[in-house]
């Protein structure tokens, strides 16, 4: 059985308190972010059922939401997830080349995870960094103006921590 720590449960309560009485379902999306961060980087059915119980809603209401939004991982992912944007503006600035470079460098295809479980490569749609293209999201942060050298440095930094 998974469970949030006491501290995290306080955070959950603070989330719920942002909404009027009885509207606790509104906390679902932030709560799923928290759960994903806490319980291994993805949302297992067990995690989703736990979230449902915290908000007193049916599990199906959680599944419906979790499968709608692209930031939730429904399967385990690597420790570092490279989410490279490939929409129009980034494409104009060479995102396709960056994606091929990463594929070759990590020896995986888009959507795959390296055998050591360190890296997952995904392509995503516009992240609101079009002026700083090509770019990718890595965890909480954006890596912008990517070049092959920058990608090397990012991979090394990930390997070293």
């Amino acid at each position, binding site marked *: 059985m998974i469970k949030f720590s006491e501290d995290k449960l306080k955070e959950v309560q603070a989330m719920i308190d942002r909404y009027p009485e009885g509207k606790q379902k509104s906390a679902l999306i932030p709560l799923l972010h928290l759960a994903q961060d806490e319980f291994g980087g993805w949302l297992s*059915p067990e995690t*989703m059922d736990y979230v449902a119980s915290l908000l007193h809603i*049916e*599990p*199906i*209401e959680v*599944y*419906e939401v979790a*499968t*709608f939004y692209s930031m939730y991982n429904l399967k385990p992912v690597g420790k570092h997830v490279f989410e490279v944007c490939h929409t129009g503006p980034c494409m104009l600035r060479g995102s396709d080349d960056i994606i091929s470079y990463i594929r070759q460098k990590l020896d995986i295809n888009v959507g795959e995870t390296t055998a050591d479980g360190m890296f997952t490569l995904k392509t995503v749609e516009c992240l609101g960094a079009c002026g700083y293209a090509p770019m990718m999201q890595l965890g909480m942060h954006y890596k912008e103006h990517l070049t092959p050298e920058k990608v090397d440095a990012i991979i090394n930094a990930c390997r070293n921590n």
Partner: protein
Amino acid sequence: MTEAVKTLKVTIDNITIDVPAGTTVLQAARMIGGDVVPPAMCYYSKLQGSGGKCRTCLVEVSKGSEADPRPMPKLVASCRTGVMDGMEVKNMTSNRVGDARNGVVEFLLLNHPLDCPVCDQAGECHLQDLGYEHGKQGTRYEFKRRTFEKHDLGPYIQLHMTRCILCYRCVFTADQLTEKRVHGILSRGDHAEIATYIEKSLDNNFIGNVIDVCPVGALTDKTFRFKNRVWFTKPVLAHRNCSCCSGKVTLWQRGEEVLRVTARKDQWGEVEEWICNECRFEKKKTSDWIIEGAAPVNRHSVISQGHYEHTIKPAETFSAVMDGRNPQLLMDIHTVSEVNDPAIDLSQVNGPATSALYAKTDKKH
């Protein structure tokens, strides 16, 4: 004391009618009846919040109201548009509507497997009717059709996701009729599907009604005793004393056998009164029921082609006719038709299925 209900005047395809305030354009058209009624694939008058999604019921509002006569710039979903006093609506009389509806039908059929020959809903499928009445022949789609992972919804209900048109009716049904919804719409866009996420069976007492509200063959009755074609069955009205629902049903019989039990439907194909799972799934003997007589059959339905009311009932039960055999498959369409070769999975054919596909089995040459 009765409060005078305000009535509004609305004209649909040049026919004017007075309706109470709060009536939608679709409801008003249904009051008029006939050809002015737009087809509705997602709206269901008995399900709150339904409608607006499929876009088959689009109509043109050529005059907004007496107070504001400007036409509405876009076509509107008649099922979710309220009548205004003096409103003028065009349905059959609008070329724009015809064109848009044509498009909607094409979109709805785009990823549809067109596996009607093996679909339990064939003959009572609203998408089939829609295709016949508003579609064009042939498809311009040449790509592989969408497929889904199979999900098991338990012992009562069979899901064929490829046939689903995402009308959301079954979701509203589960929300509004049962205590606990376990299925829903997962994923988004063209991957959206009806599922339970982790295998769960749908067995809440009134959940069987999702079969009746489903406009297509996506949700069908697993207990339908024989894989029959509805047009070979005879619908009769029947009832029983049921402790949890009205017990008023339609029995689908072949001879004396009850092959299937459904709720009774009105002329718009909508359930009149919801029935419980026990009536639907467990009462499969004629002796469970008090028979009222032949069910009226919608003129549009292919079932009406059989004209059952005037035929003589077979004296023996079905198994007697079959020399005591109780075949699982009452009639395999492939034994009488060469058109649909079972070796060809229609859902896997890219683009339209044409006679060329069947050339090999065509014996005439």
